[in-house]
């Protein structure tokens, strides 16, 4: 191995490490905040950043009528819904990554958008 060879090996190793570090830094940057995503009939209508102490509620028009969504202390729920069986209202608050509230009659989905501990949930 000549001196130049050794330099080459060193430079390649260094570049690899640097690239790894940048990659790690960037992926970390994008995963620190938690959002609740509200979809109506397949379209994203709202992305709510979940923060401590935040209180907010709003009404969104679903397929069968109005649906009131409430945000409080890093949690989200459907507080009132125009649907007959109220399955979505009974689902109550969600806050953990991977959790979701689904209102079938109104075609509304609310989910917590962050890396989840499991790939799916059976219920």
């Amino acid at each position: 191995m000549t001196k130049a060879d050794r330099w080459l090996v060193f430079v390649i190793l260094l570049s690899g490490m640097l690239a790894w570090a940048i990659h790690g830094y960037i992926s970390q940057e994008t995963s620190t905040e938690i959002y609740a995503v509200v979809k109506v009939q397949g379209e994203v209508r709202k992305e709510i950043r979940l923060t401590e102490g935040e209180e907010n509620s709003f009404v969104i028009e679903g397929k069968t009528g109005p649906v009131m969504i409430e945000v409080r202390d890093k949690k989200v729920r459907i507080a009132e819904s125009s649907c007959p069986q109220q399955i979505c209202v009974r689902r109550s608050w969600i806050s953990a990554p991977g959790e979701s509230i689904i209102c079938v009659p109104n075609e509304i989905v609310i989910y917590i958008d962050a890396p989840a501990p499991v790939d799916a949930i059976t219920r």
Partner: protein
Amino acid sequence: MMMSRKTIIAGVGFVFLVAMVYGLLISETEHEYESEQFLMDTLVNIKVYGEDAVVLEKATAEAFSEMRRVAALVDRFPEKGTSSYEKSDICRINSQAGIEPVRVAEDVFSMLKAAQEYSQLSEGAFGVTVAPLLDIWGFGKATQQVPTVEEINEALKLADEKKVVLDENKQTVFLQEPGMRLDLGAVAKGYAVEKAAEVLQEEGIKRAMINAGGNIKVIGENRDNSSWRIGIQDPRNPSEIIGVLDLKDEAVATSGDYIRYFEEKGIKYHHLLSLETGYPANMNICVTVISPEAGEADLLSTVLFLLDSEEALALAEGIENTEAFIVTSDRRIVHTSGLADKLEITAKEGYYYD
């Protein structure tokens, strides 16, 4: 200080190298495509992985249309005279009860055959002739109520699985008694998931997950060549998970008392009705079934729910490659022996298990 040309070239080369390696790190030869639609009274989510984004999108669209096709065949509630009514084999069978046999699609015939087999294994607790009973309770309709004892007895008279005549050669179904009606709610969703998985595999998809409101089928392995991790929801606290399953090329479905129910005078009544009593079965809180086939997982989760947990476990142990996880009404967690290496129980206080 002037930099030598060599240093500049080396510097530029170095930056270039870093960029290249970084590019390699973030470029993934595998794409993910995810899509969801409201179908069969639930949200259906399909996630597929592969190298060709065009193939992924096309395969997913075809899987959804396959599910819509199955959904149309078994829909029990379209209005008479509409095209949805004409397309529904279940509506046609029900309208010809006591009149004549009806020729049906292969899908409907095979769902009914499987259901009939499990009805016998359940010794009459489960049956697809449950429709009149579901109707008097109001499940599937806008309002629910506790029916009178007389109404229940009338509905139970019409719930006779022996009077569902399947003719294999002619592929016909005949309900012998006028007023009898079928409901395939316990099997259709799982069957549709299985058909959708078949479509994906025909399109060459090697890695995918279909989730129809908790009726889940996974194809192949998870992204990092590990198992798919499927959580079992805590039936009494929806933000918790009581168990995690490691699955590959398998399906899972859960039947529980906590999703579709109503309250009257402070008492909860859920939709999993026993044909022995006419009332919601009360021996279990939820039953999760793991099977290679999504239709069987769905069907068996309902059948086992209607049985005493000991009978349910014995039945599941007798079916090859099929496992069951049961939370009984006294909050005991029991499961089949084969599940031990795929299951991690994460339940905390409030549940009992060995």
